[in-house]
């Protein structure tokens, strides 16, 4: 696919945000906050960094993306639709009976979804498996995983962290969408995982710390991450939950609650 420029990626991010608002609004359910925080990462990956082919979703040499924080599915679906995997007009079927756009990603139902997620903590392990398959098959693809700060509470995250470093798994580039909130409250108040960067370093991951809404920083970090040998990479991306919609930013009420029709209109106006 043609690689978009930084300016084009910014415009695409706005478009993806509009889809997120419309999809969750139409479904009257879903998780807008964590979808909006992950938007630039997904846009940078699908429209610049990843080698993939919407006409051949099973192309064996493709780069892979696992949305470990499966509740951010609206952002993933919007990126897939805008990439050409399916018609963006169907995005508002999100969460409706019979639609492939399930509440959480289902690899059996939607081409382009690499892993079924929705039970937190599983994505890194699956990514390690894909990266090990690459090594066995002597291929060159990259496996990207988008994880959440809440997921760091899960024990499996740290099983995966230890194992990937021990087995020197490279071509595995993970993002931590560090929006500082989980369902019940701030990460600080529920189960504070700080010092986060030090933890990943201590687990022998190659780490980067960036502004997760700055497309240039994302591109720059991934370009460096692709050159890392014998180490898995964790890009700690500081983000804002609900980013792009003034009344959702940093407002955890929109973790798992959709905007009302009036709020949808207000949000779309802000995203023009």
């Amino acid at each position: 696919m043609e690689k978009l420029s930084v300016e084009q990626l910014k415009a695409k991010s706005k478009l993806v945000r509009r889809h997120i608002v419309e999809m969750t609004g139409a479904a009257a359910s879903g998780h807008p906050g964590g979808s909006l925080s992950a938007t630039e990462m997904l846009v940078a990956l699908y429209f610049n960094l990843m080698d993939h082919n919407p006409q051949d979703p099973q192309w064996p040499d493709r780069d892979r993306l696992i949305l470990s924080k499966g509740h951010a599915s609206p952002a993933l679906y919007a990126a897939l639709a805008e990439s050409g995997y399916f018609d963006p007009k169907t995005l508002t079927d999100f969460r409706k009976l019979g639609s492939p756009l399930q509440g959480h990603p289902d690899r059996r139902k939607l081409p382009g979804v690499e892993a079924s997620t929705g039970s937190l903590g599983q994505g890194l392990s699956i990514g390690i498996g894909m990266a090990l398959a690459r090594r066995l098959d002597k291929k060159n693809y990259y496996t990207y995983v988008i994880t959440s700060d809440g997921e760091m509470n899960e024990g499996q995250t740290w099983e995966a962290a230890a194992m990937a470093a021990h087995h020197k798994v490279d071509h595995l580039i993970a993002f931590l969408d560090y929006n500082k909130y989980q369902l019940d409250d701030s990460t600080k108040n529920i189960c504070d995982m700080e010092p986060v960067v030090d933890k990943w370093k201590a687990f022998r991951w190659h780490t980067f710390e960036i502004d997760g809404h700055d497309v240039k920083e994302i591109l720059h970090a991934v370009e460096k991450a692709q050159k890392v040998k014998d180490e898995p990479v964790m890009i700690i991306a500081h983000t804002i939950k609900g980013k792009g919609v003034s009344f959702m930013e940093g407002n955890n009420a929109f973790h798992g609650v959709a905007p009302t029709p009036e709020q949808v209109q207000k949000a779309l106006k802000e995203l023009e």
Partner: protein
Amino acid sequence: MEKKLGKATRDAYGETLLEIAKIHPEVVVMDADLSKATKSVIFAEKFPERFINVGIQEANLVGVAVGLASCGKIPFISSFASFLVSKGFDQFRMGVAFSELNVKVIGSHGGISVGEDGASQMSIEDIALMTSLPGFVVIVPSDEVCTRALTLETAKYVGPVYIRTGRPKAPILYKAGTDFKIGKGVRLREGKDLTIIANGLEVFEALEAAEQLAEEGISASVIDMHTVKPLDTDLILEEARRTGHVLVAEEHQIWGGLGSAVATFLAKKHPCKMGFVAIQDTFAESGQAEELLEKYGLTHPHIIKAAKKILGR
């Protein structure tokens, strides 16, 4: 009946992996630091580049297998059934069953015949858990011949499979080279009064019981129901119609095992008198395998008693 001990089913599994390695280049074997006990070490020594030891972490073990399977590999993953099934269950549910991926799961040290290591190491609930996952094939082989054949079948089959293997040497029931099909039970003995359906070590106990029952004029069929899911319902129905009395024997908790599966089917299709030889809603303890099987009601005298009870004798 003469009891000739063969290999443990876990040994037969490990040895069969060497055959599978040659037929299926896409097979990758994984373990969670128990390869010397599960016997995946046999493969690891010969094919180190296709073996992954993740350390003591079952959830990640399953997750990594999911990633490998989604790239076309066929992971055979093993650990003790007690740890693998319970600690990897969410990953089996989401990553393997729900995702419909070709992952083969081998839980060793099934049942209470683990012996001296005690209850924490004994899986008595694995069959209930794994049969509850949509699409999973669940197999409990009885001896080394059966284990080898069904492990080879498992490699050919596309989809999730769980195989339970055992720690102790298992009595030999079959001639080398006997064919087995996933989902097709084996009638080892044909009778007219009663059908005993068993799997794992209980198949030998059932045959022993049938022989002694015959001396008392009771004629019993014995079925090796090595596949719990999909269940060989044709064979069960044929037997239930002929004998009218069905006894199920398994080295598993009475809730949710082979007995429950057979009873659910027969309740719909052909209600008849039934009995259940299984672990009676309790954990076991340390001891020798034979002592434990006797204490927890799984040896042939218990099968004979249960048979007579449902026959009203």
